[in-house]
């Protein structure tokens, strides 16, 4: 028995070896180029939202071209457009432990209605300092970030129920509840450490998030999760590892047991417990940061309590299904009947049946308890196993035609198999060591199919070398035919984990071209050049500035003193598509502003020495962009230089293009 995995590993190595023997020329057949060529002036078929991994951001690619369209700043500051630096967004990254300017972004979820993508919002998780974010798909802008208490390693997140009722956030690390400390030994771990699942309610019309309740689970590690759909709507499934409850050398200690669990949570039942007042109110401290659409300003609210449910006390809403070898993926097929576990150290893929699972509960087909939670007998919930699919299954998506596509990290391949009869149908190599894969809509009730994308962990020789640090690599395959066909290889930013894709027409038409300046309710907006001014309040100076092609108003400012705190509130007066203006001032120790038409952004600057500080527009806006510049005069503290500002000489030709 002990030699079995070893042989498999060797076999896996042989598979990798044989993949490397092949070159791309062999792997790509004739018409691949035509299938991914998006002619100049034409658009891609899909928006592909790709998690940025350790970049903390979300990237947007077009499919099938693989062209990068945008990087959306979410959990990491972005000096390029001032996100996290300007006065409007600097508290978006506020947490109970201060401003955390970076994170590790793993998974994405597009909002759903009736189990289909509705194109309204994109949700993202932060793995390191537990947070979830919401991006508005009209503006591709992060509008909300919610911190999660009693959480560490927010990994099984931000998966959604089929009408976006809830977003879940499960913990990859178990930690003592209420952010307490505890000694790091096996007895203490078993006693004090818990995993939690937060059910974050999402408002139907605004998308606003709020923690409805948390389920406190034994001290194992939660990996990925999926909501039930159709018949299994009302349930949520989580994969787990380290049910051995090890606190050190998990590589070995968390790989001992043959089986870990899939945790099944009946969230409708949990809701009933909450409604019946069975949830415990617990003191907590976590931030909820929201951008107001009208003012553009972030409101940061510290929330001080959370409701918790303990399944060891409140019975019948959490069950455990044994699943081989530290499962990663835990994927529900489009019908909602089959749950695919992907034991990342297993040599088979177990497929569970929802009907069998509910029958097992009513038959009380339990093999015992774990932390007070009933464990269902493996066979009682099992639909069947895919035999010898490959090595190291990670994640499965579906094409809506009865086929499943599973990624295999160790054997570096995608395997297509039939859900009903569990037969392997096809396999293709990936370059190299695929993590997640994604079929457009492959996690919904109605997959769009057509393609599968491999998001790989190892790049090596795929592109021209760029030193030791390389871009990540993704591959696009056609799944239209019986056999998968490699079409394209494209580099990605950060390190992609999970991704989502949606047909372009569901987003394209709603995309905002510019903000209506008449709806700008920013407290320091200047709605026209006549409204510009400089106001001193003690040591604080507010500069109400406007930008329109091709001048800033005011562009000459005097009377500022060392020690002043100057706020440049710059309003972009343009009302045309793709005319942003930038604002940067010499020696400012933070970042620039990038202001969209109709928007107001604020840069704070405290000059440290007397002198002349030039400022200018950084976004090439027009033929006279280079002339869009000005000066700030900073005098010594206590100087008698009066406050003075303006643009243009009084007897010069009338200020042009004034609104």
């Amino acid at each position, binding site marked *: 028995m002990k030699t079995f995995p070893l042989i498999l590993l060797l076999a896996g190595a042989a598979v990798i070896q044989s993949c490397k023997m092949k070159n791309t020329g062999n792997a790509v057949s004739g018409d691949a180029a035509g299938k991914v060529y998006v002619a100049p002036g034409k658009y891609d078929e899909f928006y592909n939202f790709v998690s940025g991994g350790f970049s903390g951001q979300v990237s947007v690619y077009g499919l099938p071209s693989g062209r990068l369209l945008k990087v959306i700043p979410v959990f990491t500051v972005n000096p390029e457009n001032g996100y996290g630096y300007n006065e409007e967004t600097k508290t978006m990254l506020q947490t109970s432990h201060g401003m955390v300017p970076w994170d590790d972004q793993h998974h994405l979820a597009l909002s759903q209605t009736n189990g289909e993508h509705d194109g309204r919002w994109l949700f993202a998780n932060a793995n390191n300092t537990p947070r979830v974010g919401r991006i508005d798909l009209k503006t591709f802008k992060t509008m909300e970030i919610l911190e999660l208490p009693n959480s560490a390693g927010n990994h099984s997140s931000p998966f959604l129920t089929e009408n976006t009722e809830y977003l879940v956030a499960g913990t990859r690390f178990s930690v003592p509840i209420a952010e307490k400390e505890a000694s790091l030994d096996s007895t203490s771990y078993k006693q004090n450490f818990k995993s939690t699942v937060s059910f974050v309610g999402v408002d139907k019309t605004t998308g606003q998030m709020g923690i409805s309740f948390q389920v406190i689970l034994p001290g194992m590690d939660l990996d990925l999760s999926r909501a039930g759909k159709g018949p299994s709507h009302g349930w949520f499934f989580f994969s787990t590892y380290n049910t051995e409850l090890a606190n050190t050398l998990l590589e070995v200690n968390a790989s001992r047991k043959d089986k870990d669990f899939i945790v099944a949570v009946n969230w409708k039942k949990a809701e009933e417990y909450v409604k019946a007042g069975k949830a415990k109110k617990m003191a907590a401290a976590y931030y909820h940061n929201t951008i107001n659409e009208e003012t553009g300003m972030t409101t940061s609210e510290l929330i001080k309590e959370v409701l918790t449910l303990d399944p060891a006390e409140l019975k019948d809403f959490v069950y455990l299904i044994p699943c081989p070898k530290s499962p990663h993926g835990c994927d529900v097929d489009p019908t909602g009947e089959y749950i695919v576990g992907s034991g990342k150290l297993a040599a088979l893929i177990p497929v569970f049946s929802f009907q069998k699972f509910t029958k097992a509960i009513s038959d009380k087909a339990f093999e015992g308890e774990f932390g007070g939670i009933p464990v269902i007998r493996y066979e009682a919930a099992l639909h069947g196993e895919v035999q010898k699919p490959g090595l190291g299954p990670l994640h499965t998506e579906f094409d809506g035609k009865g086929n499943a596509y599973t990624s295999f990290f160790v054997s570096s391949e995608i395997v297509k198999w039939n859900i009903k009869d569990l037969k392997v149908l096809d396999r293709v190599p990936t370059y190299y060591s695929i993590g997640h894969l994604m079929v457009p809509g492959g996690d919904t009730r109605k997959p769009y199919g057509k393609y599968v994308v491999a998001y790989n962990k190892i790049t090596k020789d795929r592109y021209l070398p760029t030193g030791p640090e390389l871009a990540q690599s993704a591959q696009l395959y056609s799944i239209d035919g019986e056999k998968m066909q490699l079409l394209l290889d494209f580099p990605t930013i950060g390190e992609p984990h999970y991704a989502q894709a949606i047909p372009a027409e569901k987003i394209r038409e709603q995309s905002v071209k510019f903000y209506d300046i008449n709806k700008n309710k920013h407290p320091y907006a200047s709605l026209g050049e006549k409204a510009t001014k400089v106001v001193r309040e003690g040591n604080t100076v507010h500069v109400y500035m406007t930008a*329109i*092609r*091709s001048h800033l108003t005011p562009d000459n400012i005097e009377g500022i003193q060392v020690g002043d705190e100057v706020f440049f509130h710059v309003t972009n007066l*343009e*009302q*045309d*598509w793709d005319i942003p203006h930038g604002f940067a001032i010499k020696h400012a120790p933070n970042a620039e502003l990038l202001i969209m038409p109709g928007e107001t952004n604020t840069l704070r600057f405290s000059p440290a020495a007397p002198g002349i500080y030039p400022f200018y527009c950084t976004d090439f806006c*027009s*033929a*006279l962009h280079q*002339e869009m510049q000005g000066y700030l005069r900073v005098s010594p503290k206590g100087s008698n230089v009066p406050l003075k500002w303006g643009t243009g000489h009084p007897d*010069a*030709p009338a200020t*042009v*293009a004034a*609104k």
Partner: protein
Amino acid sequence: MIIHQRQYIINDVLPPSSSHMNKLSITGKTSILVAIGCIAALWFLPLWRIDLAAPQYPEGISMQIWINDVMGDVDIINGLNHYIGMKTIHKSDFPEFTYLPKILIAFCIGGLLVMGMNRKRGYYIYTLIFFLIAAISMYDFWKWEYDYGHHLNPSAPIKVPGMAYQPPLIGYKKMLNFEALSQPDAGGWLFILAGAILTVVSLYEWKRTKTGKI
């Protein structure tokens, strides 16, 4: 051919009266109502449009001229025109927007009077007045275009020697990076239709008199 056929039908239906040679046919009277209808539509439809395109404006910029307003991407055009020193376009600068509607209302009432008078001569004069209004309007439009295109701010950021920016009266013209297309809009086409109807029916009435004399 069609006119002849219809003439006979009408002659068959209507018994000739003593003074019918000078009176308007049913077609003549109806045509006045149709022309009034076409002109009334100008309160709901733009008269003229100028479309601009440039490499950096793939989506195009468009301006619609109504009998009482100028609409569309006027702000964008004003923003761009300041580079070459063109005056900004403002509704309040055009007295035409006040008196053109008044003239057209008077013209419509005049039509009802012509119907009431029921004289062919009135119809011919009415048609002439229509073309007078059309010609003066086009001249006025050309004059505005000339004015905007030629009277440039001497301190404009961009000055191209010898360059004027007068948009075409009708048709296509390329000016620097912009292509301009000037043409009637929906209301303009209805106005042209009204002119065509008045012309054709004038000819018809005139021929009817001639054939009636034979």
